């Protein structure tokens, strides 16, 4: 039983409005945590669109995010143009990256594409470490500008950015175009026989996923005031994004946000345990994968027809 689009959007709007009042009593620490969680939510939603709707498993979502974030950051460091220009440039770079990744995707089958995405991340990582004079190498890059120093402002920007992105991506998933994308991902031959140019649609899915990943990435750079391999590129970050989407429920878009918030909150809550915290979080994720592969949303809207 699929919850109708309009109702979900309304519930979502309500939740966002409520969340907007959080700064009234929450501490800067919690606001900061949620800000990161919201950006992560967008990363996870973009991943879910590509996976659920174009049928492509991207094991290196951080490739697109990293390309966007670092382009914006390096640009800012070198020439100090206005922030919005850096953001635009970063997003454009991410879209280009998405197209570059899409080309082999449309020709490779099965595990090969997933591996290509992993390799892309490795290459990016190596390039960044090697070009340390430009990128700050392993230590990272600091950018001179930030969007705002107020916790509240940053929080609200992240919240509403996530809300709007979510609304767009979710509506897309439920729209006729979304239906065509799902068909393209599930059964390309059948989709072609029904008159749909699968290549065109898959490329579009890549571009959309890259757009939101890149944009969110650049916004996050100008929130944190820095970028490093550890925060944007590392495979661990990519895995966290994938887990968020899977935990929330594949192909639900909105579930990805819940998954992201849960993951970030959990990691933070377990921080006193040091490295063990990651172990526990990933352990939980593994259990979900093994036992509840349909995630939160899957449990909520479970129907006997769904496998």
């Amino acid at each position: 039983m699929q919850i109708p689009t309009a109702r979900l959007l309304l519930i979502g709007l309500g939740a966002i409005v409520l969340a907007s009042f959080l700064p009234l009593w929450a501490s800067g620490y919690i606001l900061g945590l949620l800000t990161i969680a919201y950006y992560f939510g967008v990363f996870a939603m973009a991943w879910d669109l590509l996976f659920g709707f174009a049928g492509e498993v991207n094991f290196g979502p951080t490739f697109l995010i990293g390309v966007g974030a670092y382009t914006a950051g390096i640009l800012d460091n070198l020439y100090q143009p206005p922030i919005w220009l850096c953001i635009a440039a970063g997003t454009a770079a991410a879209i280009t990256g998405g197209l570059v990744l899409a080309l082999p995707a449309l020709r490779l089958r099965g595990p090969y594409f997933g591996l290509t995405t992993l390799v892309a991340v490795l290459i990016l990582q190596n390039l960044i470490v090697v070009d340390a004079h430009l990128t700050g190498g392993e230590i990272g890059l600091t950018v001179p500008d930030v969007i705002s120093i107020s916790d509240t402002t940053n929080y609200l920007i992240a919240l509403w950015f996530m809300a709007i992105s979510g609304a767009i991506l979710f509506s897309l998933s439920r729209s006729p175009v979304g239906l065509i994308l799902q068909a393209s991902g599930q059964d390309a031959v059948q989709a072609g026989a029904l008159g749909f140019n699968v290549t065109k649609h898959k490329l579009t899915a890549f571009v959309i996923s890259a757009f939101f990943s890149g944009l969110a990435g650049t916004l996050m750079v100008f929130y944190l005031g820095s970028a490093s391999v550890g925060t944007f590129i590392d495979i661990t970050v990519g895995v966290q994004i994938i887990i968020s989407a899977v935990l929330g429920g594949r192909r639900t878009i909105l579930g990805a946000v819940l998954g992201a918030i849960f993951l970030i909150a959990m990691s933070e809550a377990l921080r006193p345990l040091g490295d063990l915290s990651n172990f526990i979080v990933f352990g939980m994720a593994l259990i979900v994968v093994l036992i509840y592969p349909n995630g939160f949303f899957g449990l909520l809207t479970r129907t006997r027809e769904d496998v």
Partner: protein
Amino acid sequence: MTVFWQILIDGFAISSLYALGATGFALIFGVSGVLNLSHGSLMVAAVVAAWAAGDSLHVGPYTGAAIGVAVGFSLSMLTYFVVVSPLQHTRKIREEEKEIFILTATLLWGIMIQQLIAYFYTDNAKTVAPIVQGVIKIVGVRTPANEIFTAIVCGLAIAILWLLVNRTRAGKAVLAASMNPRGITLLGVELSQVYVAVWAIYGVLVGVAGVLLGMFLGISSYSAGPLTASAFSIVVLGGLGSVPGALIAAYVVGYLETITAYLISPAYRTIPALLLLVAVMYVRPRGLLGRR
């Protein structure tokens, strides 16, 4: 001229190590159909176990190595029974999606092991006391005897594996299972037993490769990712499912890295191999000798 010999010898040693690890990785994929992304973590676990044995229990290098291999073996069996096998047999996931879930699960599992190691033993690099010490002069080049030992052990292990698979009945059944699982089932061989056997062999290979690596270089929990990456790069280059292909590719990659490190810079050592991998994926995704 000495540089040439240095590259030749160093390259051979590191390539042999890569070959051993990649062979195991290719074996698991060829027979079990699984790309085990926790590969690097298993190797690191073996090294750290050997180091810890030497450090806390003060055992000699041979015992330490044995403990390392045992740990590699145990973790491999655990990986199969806890992570891979349940997913292969579950009914909750569509068949087409299982491959992706197994990939993700092994990735998660690998990171979990990595984090656990970092927690108990920190992420500082560890080295294991080499079994063979000292320096030998080959063709005028001073080489650690350990490197020669490593190359020999790797060669021996691969040779034993080859003999096992090509000359014993059980080994041939395993090979046949990788070619045609249904065919071998119809001949009365239980696939489940084949899988267990393969993961067991893999565990030993990974343990030996890990321990040898630990005697060669410093290994930390951070090494897990790059080790997995190099193993699957090699296996993809050689052709997914082809063990001979993986062997050849291991030497290609090993030498590429060594040449780069010596002639350009150690910092860039992984780049040419990655670029080669990208080129191969665009032009000939099947790899050198790929079947699937």
